């Protein structure tokens, strides 16, 4: 416990310094590197702490991870381990860190988790992965510039469009490449797709260097909101019969929606394919701690729904639909 003496606390100059220190302590500093946030091996081995790998600083995954740990920590048994959320560049890195015991849990896209579990694409089979809880949908955003020329934007063919998608570090790239490969060359020329960070995508569309950008993110997303503010970007529904048929035949996609008013000026619900954000671990994680974590979160669902817009529809009692073939935590 720290105790501040009133003479210092109430000092007209020092109080500002102390308050700034408090802000630093409680609101954190964004942008510190992933390497700095990874715990030391001693800490991993210390059963007093377990680590939850999330996303990049400021991302939906990072915010949701902090919320989950905070809600758990305030109600945990004092003798139970603390939860500590850490930043991570993406699902592939999180999986690697979890499978090599550098972290205990992670928030990862369902299709990436499923591919890793089944040993598909670039993954070896990792059947020790377990799903703890489904968290929220990650709906594809198709973003264009809101201009007269785009008043009747044709989403049903990308052949004559300049297309950008999220870059290779992000899990969205994995999903979008997979979807566009399934849609085939009659829909899009995959060789013409350019990969960028979401912020660069938004700027490139604002600058008329690209016609459309596809992203898979938790919503609301800062890059999209910034683009809406800077150059009147707008979301368009990514929903037409051929795409819907692909989604319905897919094991890794659902049709999802971005609720109206998620972004400034968004007057209607946006329909688009989606994946899910899952809380995952391995079968090595301590069962007692894992079940206590799940139970505390389930008991606090009404609070969780109020703490982040992506958690508004949270239902921790449902079974995750996109990874039916995977084992849940506690199933051996």
């Amino acid at each position, binding site marked *: 416990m720290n105790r501040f003496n009133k003479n210092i606390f109430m000092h007209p100059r020092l109080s500002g310094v102390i308050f700034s220190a*408090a802000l630093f*302590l409680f*609101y954190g500093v964004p942008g510190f590197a992933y390497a700095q946030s990874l715990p030391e091996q001693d800490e991993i081995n210390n059963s007093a702490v377990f680590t939850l790998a999330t996303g990049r600083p*400021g991302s939906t995954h990072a*915010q949701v991870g902090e*919320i989950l*740990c905070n809600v758990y920590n305030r109600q*945990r048994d004092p003798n139970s381990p603390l939860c500590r959320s850490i930043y991570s560049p993406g699902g592939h890195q999180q999986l690697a860190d979890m499978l090599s015991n550098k972290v205990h849990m992670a928030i990862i896209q369902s299709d990436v988790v499923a591919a890793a579990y089944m040993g598909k694409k670039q993954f070896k089979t990792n059947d020790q992965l377990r799903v703890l809880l489904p968290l929220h949908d990650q709906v594809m955003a198709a973003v264009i510039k809101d201009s007269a020329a785009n008043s009747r934007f044709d989403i049903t063919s990308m052949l004559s469009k300049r297309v950008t998608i999220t870059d290779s570090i992000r899990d969205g790239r994995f999903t979008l490449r997979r979807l566009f490969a399934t849609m085939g060359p009659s829909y899009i020329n995959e060789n013409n797709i350019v990969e960028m960070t979401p912020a660069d995508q938004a700027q490139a569309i604002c600058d008329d260097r690209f016609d459309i950008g596809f992203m898979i993110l938790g919503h*609301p997303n800062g890059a999209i909101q910034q683009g809406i503010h800077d150059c009147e970007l707008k979301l368009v529904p990514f929903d037409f019969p051929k795409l819907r048929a692909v989604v319905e035949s897919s094991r890794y996609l659902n049709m999802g929606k971005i609720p109206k008013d998620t972004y400034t000026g968004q007057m209607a619900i946006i329909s688009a394919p989606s994946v899910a954000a899952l809380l995952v671990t391995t079968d090595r994680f301590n069962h007692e701690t894992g079940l206590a974590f799940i139970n505390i979160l389930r008991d606090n669902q009404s609070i969780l729904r109020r*703490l982040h817009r992506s958690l508004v529809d949270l239902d921790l009692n449902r079974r995750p639909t996109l990874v039916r073939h995977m084992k849940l935590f506690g199933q051996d």
Partner: protein
Amino acid sequence: MTTNGLWTESFCNQEEVIDAVTGGVIGVVIDPITNRRRRRKENQRQLNSYDVVSAKITGELLYDSAGIWSGGILQKSGQEIEYEQIQ
């Protein structure tokens, strides 16, 4: 309201605040602890107490009768820190 508004008791009426560091929106769930208004032994001052949960700050906030932040018991990464004015 931004997170800097923590200084005043009106902060406790918010459901979302703007993070003064990142500019992002933070959801907050703040409920008054009505059944145990605090009375500090040191000075017998009556303080209003609120339970707060968010992505960035969790714990208990205390405000004096003028609605000014008087301290709190806050958690960061599960570590508890108490802020207290001492007369």
